[in-house]
Structure formats: C-alpha cells, structure tokens
C-alpha cells in the first residue's frame, strides 16, 4: 500500500513539471509581447523595451524556463504585473474559500449521487429508477452557477431560510462557515451528483447481472443482502474513478459559483488577471489549481486502491 502511494506520488512529478512548462509557455502564445498587451495603447518601442527589461522578458527562453521552474518549486511564482505583490500570496490567501467550496461540492455529489444511484440500482427498470434517471439527466444539464442563482433566489431571498451573508472562515466560526457553504456546495455538487448516480446505478446493474450475482443468488443470498453487501462495493470501483474526473469540473465551476455567492475564492483573482492580462497571476493560478487537483486525485486514488483489491494486492 505504501509502495502504491509512493508510486502515485512519483507519477505526479512529471505531471507537475509538464504543467509548469505549459503555464510558462502561455506567455509565448500571446500575439505580440506581454509588455505590449500590458501597456495597451501608448506603447512606444522604448517603453516596451523598458517594461520587458523590468519584467525580465529579455533573457533567453531556456534560462527563463529554468528560472521559472526553480522558483516555482520553492513556492515563488513571480509577482503580479499590476499589484506587484507575490503571486503565491495572492492565490494562497484565496485558496481556503475555493477549497471549502470544492470539498463541499464533492461531498454533496457523493452523498446525493450515491443515494440516487443506490435508489435506482436497487429498483432497476421500475418507476423509481426511471424517475431518478430522468432527474440525473436534468441535473447534468443545469450549469452550476445557474443553479446557484436559483438556490439563492429561492432559499435566501424568497423563503429567507439562510440569510445572504459574507464568507466566514472555518477558523473563525465553523458553524457560520458551514452555513455559508451549504448553498454553494449544493450548487456545485448537484450536476456532478448526476454523473455519480449514473455510474453507481450502472455499477449496481452490472453486479446484479454478473456471473457472481448469479452464483451468490444460487447460494441463497437475497437481493437485498446482495445489494448492500456486494452491489454497492462493486459499484464503488467505477464511482471513484468518475469522482477523479468530476473533481476538475467542480474546481472550474467554482469560479462562477463564487461570484454568485460573493465568496472570495481564487476565481475572482484569476478573472481579474485574465481581463487585465496580468500573466504571472494567470500562470500562478493554473499551477496552484493543478497542484490542488493532483493532490485531491491522489487521495481519491488511494481510496480507489482501498476498494479495489486488484490494485492493492499485487
């Protein structure tokens, strides 16, 4: 098991390097020079050269790449063109809010998705199954931020169940934090729960129709006992594989959901940087978010190995 974790961590190294290289190359995709983009109008050739020197854009590419990776490994992602603050600080101070939403979203999607999946999977081809499956079709078709708006309108404005309040840090007041995270998590996790429910149902159906389903039934195991002792665990294998893929979707969607609920997440910083062409911040956000997703994926992979003995046992 330890070997597996070590192997998984080892695999993350080239992945991380590739992402660093890609994010570094981003500035080279820009038509013209970043300095030009930054200065917009009023850019004289002298002024551009000046800014390029100031930003360190005049040295050869391989030197700059080596420098970028070297600094990044030590946690230095450069500084913002605009605010001149270190990019790492700008992003890391907003990471807790994004992480809160994503973890909340994953939790919602797993609980809701597995619940619906089990409900449908234990009632295959019956009305409850069809209803749940129709529900998941709708769930995956609603953009997360749109659901967020509807929830905000319904729960906070019309019904006034949960007041619209500013984001509270977990360390300040866990209860208020949780209350503030409830709607964003729901908005974020609902669409993904549709995907998870489908995987769960498909996994349960496969188990029921499998050869081992037949041999356990022939040994006298009841449907109910089969579902809860065998069906769910077998279905969890594809479900966890799907969760890994869902994660990236959730992180991306959180940028829009945080705007709906006025949560100070990475998305705000990123969007501001995108519109103002503040490339170090865009690059930094790409790297930090990728690291976040990689780490969460490693955790999911470990869970996957715990469930699937084929991976765990030799």
């Amino acid at each position, binding site marked *: 098991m330890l070997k597996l974790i070590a192997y998984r961590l080892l695999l993350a190294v*080239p*992945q991380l390097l590739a*992402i660093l290289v890609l994010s570094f190359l*981003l*500035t080279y*995709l*820009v038509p013209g020079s970043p300095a030009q983009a930054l200065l917009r109008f009023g850019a004289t050739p002298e002024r551009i050269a000046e800014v390029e020197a100031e930003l360190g854009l005049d040295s050869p590419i391989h030197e700059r790449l080596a420098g970028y990776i070297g600094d990044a490994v030590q946690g230095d992602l450069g500084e913002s063109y605009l605010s001149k603050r270190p990019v790492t600080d700008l992003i890391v101070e907003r990471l807790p809010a994004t992480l809160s939403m994503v973890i909340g979203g994953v939790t919602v999607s797993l609980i809701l998705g597995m619940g619906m999946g089990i409900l449908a999977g234990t009632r295959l*081809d019956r009305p409850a199954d069809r209803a749940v499956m129709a529900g998941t*079709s*709708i769930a*995956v*078709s609603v*953009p997360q*931020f*749109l659901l967020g*708006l509807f929830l*905000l*309108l319904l729960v906070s404005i019309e019904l006034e169940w949960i007041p619209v309040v500013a984001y509270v840090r977990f360390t300040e007041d866990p209860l208020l934090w949780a209350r503030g995270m409830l709607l964003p998590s729901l908005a974020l996790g609902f669409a993904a729960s549709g995907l998870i429910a489908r995987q769960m149902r498909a996994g349960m159906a496969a188990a029921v*129709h*499998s*050869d*081992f389903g*037949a*041999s*356990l*039934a*022939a*040994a*006298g*195991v*009841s*449907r109910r006992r089969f579902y809860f002792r065998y069906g769910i*665990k*077998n279905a969890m294998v594809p479900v966890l594989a799907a969760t*890994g*893929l869902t994660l*990236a*979707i959730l992180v*991306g*969607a959180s*940028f*829009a959901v945080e*705007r*709906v609920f006025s949560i100070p997440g990475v*998305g705000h910083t*990123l*969007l501001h940087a*995108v*519109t103002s062409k503040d*490339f170090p911040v*865009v690059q930094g956000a*790409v790297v930090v*978010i990728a690291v976040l*997703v*990689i780490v969460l*994926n490693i955790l999911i992979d470990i869970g996957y190995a715990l*469930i*699937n*003995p084929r991976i765990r*046992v030799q």
Partner: protein
Amino acid sequence: MTAMGDTVADPAAQVSEQEVTAARRTGTFGRIFRRPSAAVALAFVVLLVLVAVFAGPLAPFDPDDKNITSALEGPSGEHWLGTDDFGQDVLSRIMAGTRIALAVSLGSVAVAALIGVPYGLLLGYMGGWVDRIGSRVIDMSDALPGLLVALALIAAFGRGLWSVVFAIGIVFCMAIARLTRAVTLAERNKEYVDAARVSGLRPPEILFRQILPNLIAPLTAQASLMLGAAMIIETTLSFLDVGVEGVSWGGLISAGADELRRHPFLLVPPGAAVILSVLAFNFVANGISDVLAGTSLGSLRSKACPSAAQLEPSASHAKPLLADGSFRPDGVLEIRGVTVALPRPGQDPVPLVEHTWLSIERGEVLGLLGETGSGKSMLARAVLGLLPRPTYLSAGSVILDGAEISGLPERELRGVRGREISAVFQNPTTALSPVHTVCRQVSEPLRIHLGLSRSEARDRTVELLELVGVEDAASRIEDYPHQFSGGMAQRVAIAMALAAEPKLLIADEATSALDTTTQAQVLDLLLELRDSMNMAVLIITHDLGVVAETCDRVAVMYAGQIVEVNDVTSLFDTPRHPYTAALLQANPAADQASAGRRPTIAGRVPPPGEWPSGCHFANRCSFAQPACSEQPVLFVDGVRCLRSEELAQAGALR
C-alpha cells in the same frame, strides 16, 4: 479456452432474428428517431439551428434597441418574454444569443475532434511506447480544469469567437482522444484486424477503412454530450464576462443576477434556454448510446414485459399428459411439464423451453446435453427460480422432495437456493465478486442457511476449501478471487455451492471454460463429492465427453425440448433419437483412431421463435417423413420420435 454454453444473461438475444435484422436495416439514426425522447430532442436541436440562422429576420425587435421607459417589464403581448434593465426585448436577445451559444459549442467540438480523433487513433493503433507516453499526456490533462484552461487561453488570445472556440476545443480534445484510443485499441485487438494484417492490408487501410467505421457511432454520442458541456462552458464564460463579446445567454443571466431581488423573472428565459438546449444534446447522446448498447430492443421488450404481478409464475398444474415410463416420480427433484417463455410485443410469447419432464434421484448424476440455443441453461434457471427478466415460467411446476417450489414467494425460495439446490456456472474467473474475499463469499450460505457465527463460518470455510482441494486453505481464505487460477477459482465456487450441503448441485457448463487437465480434476472432484455427500448432480453441458465421463443418466435437449432420456451406456450404445445418433457420429474422439470423414447434420439449430411446428428436428433429420412435420411429437417411452422403434429395429441409428 472456448465456451459454448447457452447465454442466459440476455434473453433479448434470442428474440427472433428477423426483428433484429429489421431494426438494423433502418440504420443507427433511424433507430434513434424511434425513441420518443431522442426524437423530440433532435427536433429541438434542429429548431435551435433554425433560430440561430434566422435570428435577424425572425426577432420581433432589434436585440440592442434600448428603451429605458419600458425597463424590467414582465411578459406582455408586445414583449413575450418581457424586457431587461435597459428595456431591451428579452426574446430577441435570447434569439440573438443562440448564435454565439451554437457557434461556440459546434465550433469547439469540431476543433476537439480535429485534434483528438487523429491523436487517439495514433495511440490506439501504434500501441507500445507511443501509447504509453501519449496516454500519460491524456491522464495529465485530468489535473487541469477545463474552465481554467479556457480562461488561460482567453487571457492569451483575447475574447474573439475563434479564440473562445479554440480555447474550449482544447479543453475537450483530450476526452475525445481518450475515447478514440479506447475504441481503437478494442477494435485493434479483434480478430478481423489480425485478419486484415494477415491479408497484407497496409496500416492506413486498416486504420481508415477497417477501424474508423466502427468509431463513428460512439464518437457521435460523445460529441453530442460534449456539445452540451461546451454550451455550459460558453455560458459560464459569458456569465463571467470573459466570453465572446456580443449578446449571449450567459450575459443575459448575468444581467438577471444583478436584478435578482427586483426582477427575478429575468433569469428564467436565458436559464431555460441553456437548460433545454443542453438537455436536448444529452438526450440525443443517450439515444445514440442506447442504440449502440443494443438496447434498441429494450423498448420493444419493456412494452411486452408483463408487470411484476403478472410475472409471478402461474404454476398451472398441467395434467401429466406427457409423463411416461422414463419419468420417475420419486426423484429428489421433479421437473413437471416446465415451459419457459419470453414475452413479445403484440405477439404470442416465444417459448424457450417446452413441456419438459425430468426427474433426478438422490445421489444420481444426470446429464443435460444440448447445443447452443437448446434451452438447457434456461431450464436450470427455471429450477432455481432465477429466470432472467422478462422470461417466465409459463407452464409446469418444479417439485423438490415432494413439495412444489415453483411459484413460492421469493422469501421462501431463498431458503431453497443454496440449502436444497445450488449451482456452479461456467466462468470461474467472474463467478465470485472481485472486491470481496473468498472467505466472505464461501461463508455466505453457512451464515444464511446454517446460522453460523462469523468465526464458526470461517473455520468451516477452511474445511470446505480443503475438501474441494484448495491447497493451504487456511492461509488463502483472505485472498481475493483474482489471486486464484481458473481451476482453483472454480473449486472455490464449488465450495460455496456445497457449503450448506444441498441435495442437488447444478453444474451449468461448469468445466467448459477450463483446460483439459483441469476439467478432468474438477469433474473427478464433483464425482467424489457426490459419493461422500450422497448428493444429486445435474450436469449441463454441450460436451459428449463430459457426459461419457461423469453421468449415470442423460437427457438430450434440442430446440427447447427433451428428445431422449436414457441411462448413459444405453444412450451411447443404442441411441433412439436420430439427433442423438447424429451428435454421437459427429463427435470426434481422442481415444479412437479417425474414422475418416464424419457425417454431419445439415443446417443449424433453429432459434426460439422459428421452431418447426411438428418435430423440431424434422428439417435436419435424414429419416424425416411428412408425418413428422404434421403435429407436435409426443415424448413417449423416453424418446420424442415417431419412427424411433422402426429405426431401432432396422439398426439405422448406429
């Protein structure tokens, strides 16, 4: 190794061939149209395209026409969907927004396909290190949220239409590459590709003429799903005000969000437009996938499928009309006139097994011999009360130790399965749950039927595994099924079946998937267990050799009927049915020198639904007479043949 057992899993596979052929002839897209949800969805997509193309002339107002005096109005005769904060007509703006929504999603999926399909084809076809490295790149992309990539590229290239199309296209190309690679790899390993290589076809020919046609349908389904996902990303980008500049659904939602307290209705029209469009793309994708998965027959089937109440076996006590001397009514198990049927829409149900009478005595090994499609496995499922839906027991009954078990409620049947009758199936590697230990599975019957505690069950499981010949059983019970070889896994499955010491064990092609030497060991084991436990064994097989090696008595099944029952030596010495005789002659034997050319049976076993009305074998029988096809042939004195006696006297069946 090969296995030829009847497949029980999908009764639809046995639906008349004409139906399948008819369905196939209409083509994939024709079949999608037959599904109402997919047809409506496809119609909606067509409507969207029309609106996008003709948005200009169709729209009641100029979408940019501002009129502050009529701002934030609800729906009215003039403004069907009301107005926004600048008094602009919402309907006209939604129509204008359709353009960006469709252009971006279609464009980006096209970009994704242009990059992803060649890349996936390359990896899947080349294999080896190209694939290993290339797939790693695909895996790496999992760490990058699509929206993040899109934002970064928009930062670099700006908010132009092409820039956004490219940015979203990049997000999806890896997913398309992954699917393309997976399908290519699967197709590449099929024997038709080997055959094409052996014929000397060049790689490009194989790739584009042989493999690509098989990719089109799954790729279309994936692309349709992606259209929906791309539309969500486009809307999100324009909601965040970094999408394509111009009137967009996301921008309309953003305007609605700003007026959430004052005029929430503003959210409804653009929200509904997005949700309905994405839903339409998803339903089209589902339609394609369902057709691909072969469940196109699902709709036909579900209509025909009787409700659960009707499914309860109707246990009609048919009078033992056809019972005769060969039916011994004192067996541990009696199958009395069992008929299994598959319901069909608008037609009579198709019988899969017809009027079967059979009994097994305690300690007897009875063989049930038949080719694919004979219904032998269906009969076993009927005995266990485990018929796959929607097939059902349409007539007859199953009697265990004098008590009828067919028609028992599920709760009582559970006490029979595993305790009185248990079964071992064909494929040992899938016969046990892959994510549970062997101990847990083998001890199930001990805990359910014998009420043993966890530790008692564990001790007994070790004994059982030793009994079936698993070496070093005590240290292996915490192992998982994949750690056992095929032969050992089948021994474990047998241990599970025997745990509660049933009176009857059904071995359904239980050794067909095993190697010759392993098969011999498992068959010897079954016979030893029969002796030590005085248990009846029903061996279902297509292999005459297995019958000759193990059985006391044999029933030969052909096209849903038992055609002959006899003790094993008599059956091999003096077959009484022409089919039995023909099978014996067609069987190549390793213990006899070749007799030259083997006589064959012309034609093939007719599938259910196409059985002749008289003798089922008549159209392939070399002794058939007009009388054979006139009416159903009764099972008399152990054989179902009009000319049996006459042929036996003439010695024609040797």
